C-alpha cells in the first residue's frame, strides 16, 4: 500500500490539486467542526447578507460533534457524521473559499461539481473509531454556535489525523470506483 501523503493547514489550492481519490492522507493543523445546525445557520447568514461566523478561506471543515471532554482531556471521542446532510449548504461554502471537508458517505452531484469548480477536496474519516481519533486532537475551543450544545462549531488542532481522499478536484471519486469495480 502507498505511504500516506503528509499535509498541513492552511490547505492551499496548489496542495489540494495534487491529491487524488484513494490517497491516504495524514493531516496536521487546524480544522473547524460544524454539522447540521452550523450549516443551517451559515446558510441563513449568507442569505441574509451577514458575515459567516468563521473564516472559511482555505479552511478544512470537519462534519463532527464530539462527546464532551472528560476531566483531564482536551476532547472526548470524535468522528465523522454522514456528509450528505450538509450537501444542500455546501456549494455556497465552497464558493466562499472552503478548501476541504472531512466526513463520511457520498456527496451529491452539485457538491462534486462545485468541488471541481473551486479546487476543493473531500476526505473520508473512518466512522465509528472515535476513541482512536480523539488521540490526534491536541486542542479544542468553541468558536461559534455555542448554544447548539454538541453541535457547536469548534476549532481543533490535530496531529496526523488519518484520512482518505474520497473526492479530488478533478472528478475522481473513490466510492464510485469501488462501485464500478464490484464483481
Amino acid at each position: 500500500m502507498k505511504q500516506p501523503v503528509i499535509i498541513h493547514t492552511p490547505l492551499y489550492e496548489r496542495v489540494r490539486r495534487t491529491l487524488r481519490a484513494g490517497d491516504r492522507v495524514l493531516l496536521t493543523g487546524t480544522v473547524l467542526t460544524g454539522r447540521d445546525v452550523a450549516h443551517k445557520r451559515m446558510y441563513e447568514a449568507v442569505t441574509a447578507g451577514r458575515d459567516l461566523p468563521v473564516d472559511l478561506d482555505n479552511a478544512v471543515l470537519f462534519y463532527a460533534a464530539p462527546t464532551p471532554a472528560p476531566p483531564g482531556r482536551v476532547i472526548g471521542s470524535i468522528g465523522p457524521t454522514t456528509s450528505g446532510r450538509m450537501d444542500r449548504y455546501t456549494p455556497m461554502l465552497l464558493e466562499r473559499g472552503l478548501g476541504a471537508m472531512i466526513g463520511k458517505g457520498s456527496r451529491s452531484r452539485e457538491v462534486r461539481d462545485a468541488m471541481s469548480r473551486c479546487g476543493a477536496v473531500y476526505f473520508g474519516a473512518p466512522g465509528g473509531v472515535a476513541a482512536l481519533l480523539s488521540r490526534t486532537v491536541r486542542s479544542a475551543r468553541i468558536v461559534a454556535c455555542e448554544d447548539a450544545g454538541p453541535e457547536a462549531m469548534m476549532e481543533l488542532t490535530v496531529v496526523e489525523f488519518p484520512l482518505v481522499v474520497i473526492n479530488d478536484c478533478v472528478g475522481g471519486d473513490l466510492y464510485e470506483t469501488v462501485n464500478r469495480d464490484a464483481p
Partner: protein
Amino acid sequence: MGSLREIPVSLVADRVRELFLEANWTLGADVRAVIEGARDAEDSELGRWAFDQIVENIDAARRELLPLCQDTGLAVVFIEIGQDVHLVGGHLVDAVNEGVRRAYGEGYFRKSVCDPLTRTNTGDNTPAVIHVEIVPGDQLHLLVMPKGGGSENMSTVEMLTPSAGEEGIKRYIVETVRRAGPNPCPPIIVGVGIGGSMEAAALLAKKTLARSPGRPNEKDPRLATLERELLDEINALGIGAQGYGGTTTALAVHVDMIPCHIASLPVAVNIQCHVARHRETII
C-alpha cells in the same frame, strides 16, 4: 391469586445506567470476534487498514474509558416484564429515563436527542425509546441498545406485494444496502423483519440486532438459509469497510419473521454499524 414479586423502579434506573455506560465503552466480545475474523479474510488493502483502525479503537475506548463512537446514540430500551412482577416506588418510564440521564451525564456521552422541528437539544439524551412486553414469570429483562443515527438513517420499511415473494424480498434488502453504500459505517449488521404489520416488521428488524452477530436464526431453517444467501449477495456488492471497497460489507444478516395479512408482505431493514452496542441483564 399468586404472589407478586416487588421490584423497585429505582433498581431499573440503576441497571439502565450501568448498561448504557458499559455498552458505550466496551464492545461485546462476540462482535469483536466477528470483526477480527473479517479483518483476517479481507482482500482489500484499504479495507484491512479500515479494519485495523476498528480493532484498535475497541482497545482504545476500553483502555481510556472513552465512548467507542462519538455518536453515543438514541437510547433504545427493550423491557420484558414478567406478569407476576409488581413495579413499586415510581413510574417505570421515569426510571428508565433517569438511568439514561445519569449514564449520559456521568459517562461524558454526547447528548444526541432533539426536538424534530426546532432541532433544540433536550440536553440529557432523554427521552429513551422504550418497548415494553409482558411475559410469563416474575423477572424483568432489560436490554439497552444505544443506536447511532448514521446507520438508522439508512434503514427502511417497505410494504411489498405478496407476489414479490422471496426473490422480491431479497432484491429489496440488497438494494437497500447498496443504496446506503458507505453512509452507515460499514461493515454493517443487517437486521430484517418480515411480516406482521408495518410497525411490527420494523420492531422485529430492530430486535434481531440484539442477536450475537452471525448466529443463525435457530427457529426457522428457511430463514437461516435466507440469511446466508443475503450475506453472500451483500458482500458481493464490494462496498467494503468504511466504503473503501473490500470483501466484507456486512458482518452478518439477521432475519426474523411473523405471519402477516393475506394482502401484505411488510419487510423492514434496520441497519446497524460495526459498533454494534447492546447490553442486557435480568432483574
